[in-house]
């Protein structure tokens, strides 16, 4: 093949690669590398030999990486591991909610009985009941924290899916059908689904949150 034709072919392949929307097939890279190698004809200089060796090493590296990723069974991450983790976390929220409601039922029964108690005892019971209600706020907070973790897992799921698409079917060893991704809280373009989405940070870690006193200070 004439040098000009080879250059034109390789340029065309590189242009196709540039047009890929983030999902580059490693096979395409290998094909381009092979085109370059095939174009090298005749006696090669020392520099030419080095370039040839580097290109060959690059092709080998890509194939090895693909094989190693396949061994990790990335399809299992989306098919089994992430859904299982999400289910477990959802179950935790459900279990704590159920337990909290059971506590409420018991406490409300105790509180109703205070009407039949001497005032001094009833006051002490009421204070204890109030403390229990305050403490049960944990269910709301843990629920929101777990929801944040589930959202993070969904992001990981998206990235793994993109990786699987980039490396093609040969690393998808499983024949199991893919699960549809969960509903996202953002639009496909990444824009917030609600006007105040960018302000919704959820419960903060203690060193990142401001105190009630700080909030009071903001209110002057």
């Amino acid at each position, binding site marked *: 093949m004439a040098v000009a034709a080879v250059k034109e072919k390789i340029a065309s392949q590189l242009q196709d690669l540039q047009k890929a929307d983030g999902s580059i097939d490693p096979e395409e890279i290998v094909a381009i590398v092979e085109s370059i190698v095939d174009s090298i004809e005749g006696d090669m200089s020392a520099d030419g030999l080095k370039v040839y060796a580097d290109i060959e090493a690059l092709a080998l590296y890509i194939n090895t990486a693909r094989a190693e990723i396949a061994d990790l069974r990335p399809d299992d991450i989306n098919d089994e591991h992430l859904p299982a983790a999400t289910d477990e976390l959802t179950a935790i929220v459900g279990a704590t909610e159920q337990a909290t409601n059971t506590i409420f039922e018991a406490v409300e029964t105790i509180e109703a009985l205070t009407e039949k108690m001497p005032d001094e005892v009833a006051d002490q019971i009421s204070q204890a009941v109030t403390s229990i209600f305050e403490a049960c706020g944990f269910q*709301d907070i843990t629920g929101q924290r777990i929801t944040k973790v589930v959202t993070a897992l969904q992001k990981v799921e998206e990235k793994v899916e993109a990786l699987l698409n980039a490396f093609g079917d040969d690393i998808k060893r499983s024949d199991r059908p893919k699960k549809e991704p969960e509903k996202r809280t953002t639009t496909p373009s990444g824009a917030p689904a609600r006007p105040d989405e960018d*302000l919704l*940070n959820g419960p903060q870690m203690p060193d990142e949150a401001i105190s009630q006193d700080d909030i009071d200070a903001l209110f002057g």
Partner: protein
Amino acid sequence: MSTVDMGMPILIVDDYKTMLRIIRNLLKQLGFNNVDEATDGSAALQKLRDKEYHLVISDWNMEPMSGMQLLTEVRADTKLKELPFIMITAESKTENVIAAKEAGVSNYIVKPFNAATLKTKLSAVLGNF
């Protein structure tokens, strides 16, 4: 002497039923017994337009209409714009509090909270009781 009407109708808004129950019971402990509930901003807005309430206590992060959106709607409504509105939320970043204050919130309580904090904030908004 207390000038607060302890029988005033109060609307509490939260998508977690356990939190609604906690706030209702804490309000009961403080002497407020006329309490209605809603589980998101749009349901709350409908209730506010159907019945006269003297106070709204709302969570922020709810679907489909958040507490912030509810606050904005309330402040934009000629009949509701003066309604006392307390936000009780886990959203505890400074930017959240400032945004809520700029939107016209009457006071702001961070979860988890206790009955004493609730009483203090109610007093600040309604007067001592």
